[in-house]
């Protein structure tokens, strides 16, 4: 039974069709990568799934709930978390607060204004645990905006996974990192998504082939192929979409 299932999802912005009928099933526990050239609509697809955009037509089911027109917070409460391509943290708050905020809803605090966070030991321990996972425990009281880039990206991941969501979507998690930083990040991603479903958009093919069980190639709003890494690499249509027809013949 697929945990996430897209059926003929379309999205128009005015006259232009950005997503032209995407259907995709993601199995529980699967590590799925979405690749494609610039402007193919990868981020838009992420936004549709996570609730930032409403679909023009089609359905998205997450754990048998239709979520295509739900708000981001409703989708998140169902157990779907995501990160962003551009670092998207709470810059003026410290690292610990960033993670703790991400934990609040799943720990059942809702909009409470009668709990003092300092006294919520279980919550604080959980937050510390997440910080340890993303190796930022010694930066806990640092303003998030002052962290080094790779650390901010790690925090970005931390916020996404903190709530213990079953499905995690990562949008270019290693973009802008140096080689060694990227390697660390991949290791981190693997560790923190253990046993969970992962969908990620990434341009670094080494990482994609390293992490993903299956890959979907999105070109101009359509998925031209979904398969395991080896088959994708061998697929001429994929090469063409990426490099143009001449290179294929070479």
């Amino acid at each position: 039974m697929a945990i996430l299932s897209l059926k003929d999802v379309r999205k128009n912005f005015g006259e232009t069709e950005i997503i032209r009928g995407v259907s995709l099933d993601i199995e529980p526990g699967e590590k799925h990568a979405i690749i494609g050239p610039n402007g193919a609509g990868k981020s838009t697809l992420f936004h549709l799934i996570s609730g930032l955009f409403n679909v023009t037509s089609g359905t998205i089911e997450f754990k048998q709930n239709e979520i295509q027109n739900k708000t981001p917070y409703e989708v998140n409460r169902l157990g779907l978390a995501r990160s962003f391509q551009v670092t998207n943290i709470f810059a003026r708050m410290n690292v610990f607060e960033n993670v703790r905020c991400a934990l609040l809803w799943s720990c059942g605090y809702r909009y409470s204004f009668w709990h003092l966070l300092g006294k919520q030991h279980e919550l604080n321990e959980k937050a510390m645990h997440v910080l340890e996972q993303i190796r930022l425990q010694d930066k806990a009281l640092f303003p998030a905006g002052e962290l080094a880039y790779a650390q901010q990206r790690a925090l970005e991941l931390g916020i996404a996974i903190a709530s213990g969501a079953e499905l995690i979507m990562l949008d270019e998690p290693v973009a802008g990192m140096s080689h060694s930083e990227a390697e660390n990040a991949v290791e981190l991603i693997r560790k923190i998504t253990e046993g969970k479903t992962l969908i990620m958009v990434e341009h670094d093919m080494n990482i994609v082939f390293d992490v993903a069980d299956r890959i979907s190639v999105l070109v101009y709003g359509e998925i031209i192929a979904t398969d395991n890494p080896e088959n994708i690499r061998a697929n001429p249509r994929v090469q063409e979409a990426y490099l143009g027809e001449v290179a294929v013949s070479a």
Partner: protein
Amino acid sequence: MSMVKKLSVWIGYLVVLLILPRLFDSILAISILNQMAIGIVFALSYNMLLGQGGMLSFGHAVYFGLGGFMAVHALIMIESETAYFSILLIPLIGGAFGLIAAIFIGSFSTHKAGTVFAMISLGIGELIAASSLIFVSFFGGEAGISGDRTFGPLFFGVDFAQDLEIYYLSAVWVFIATVFMYLFTQTPSGRMANAVRDNPERAEFIGYSARRVRFISFCASGLFAGIAGGLFALNYEFITDESLNAITSGRVLLMAYIGGLGYFIGPIVGAVILTLMNSLLSNYSDLWLLYLGIMFVLTVMFLPRGFAGFIMMHQVVWLRGNLKSLILPYLITGIPAAIFTSACIALVEMSHLEEEVFHYLGLELDPSATLTWIITIAIAAGSFYATRRSVGQLSDAWESANSFPDSEDR
């Protein structure tokens, strides 16, 4: 911070609040202290909105004023014996009414932050201020309404006729309000307000509706603004449309901004500075509003994080033990800057004054003599030059005091 340290800060705050009228005990001083008390609660409530929630409001006086009006009506009810309770609770009445108004208005205005919110707040502010002159039976027209705080049951024999007694009552309320506003920042809703301010989009992806979070901050802010309005009612025993209108809204923005947004103590500092300026400066010059305007614009340009921000800037330097190295550069720049400022003030005042003699800093200046002008202008120019020259050194000194021995974190 350890528990003890935290507690001692709060106890210190309470002690300062309670000891102040012993140090400054003239009738004027007490009334200034009362104003400060009101200003502190009001500015803190504004900071909940703008500093912590990221909502720029041009109509915050609405909640202050409505709370105040309700509080005065409550005083009238006590006086006319339609209600019987101690005036200790008056601020609570104001707060409740501020909260009700905030719930109503917040229900449609907290959709968005930013310009849309700011404009709605402006519109609502103008609407309510204008209605206050139309609905005379509740607002009393331009004369406002007045009550008397000495009725109702006595509190251990105190009837609160004197301002000093009201000050102690206010001080307790200020303390309670400050504590609760601080505690609010420590709750899930208070924290999420910060998160929504920083990044409303992301907040939605961790399960929170940005609108609901804003709404809660908005209501809390309205509640405390109403409490401030209640304190106003107790202190002045009357209230007019002035407390509802754009001037009051502007003043609270000024307080919070000059004090320093985003720092919890910022609004407190701002309320103290502005109250002092308002009540003392105007005694020395009728141009004080001009000086206030200049100071405000310069603050926005050069101290974007306000006075509290300026002080906090030195925290790092202090922690590094480099504060001493700054004293001399500060003096080298500060002294000519102070001279320049006073020379400019002298020029402005002399061109404005009609009297023959202008008493200034213990000097007697004669505005009709050309020599006075030449000397003053020369002093201004000289000190300006000296300031300009030394600013470079100051910023160098600042850089070196701030520089990290190891740039690991940068």
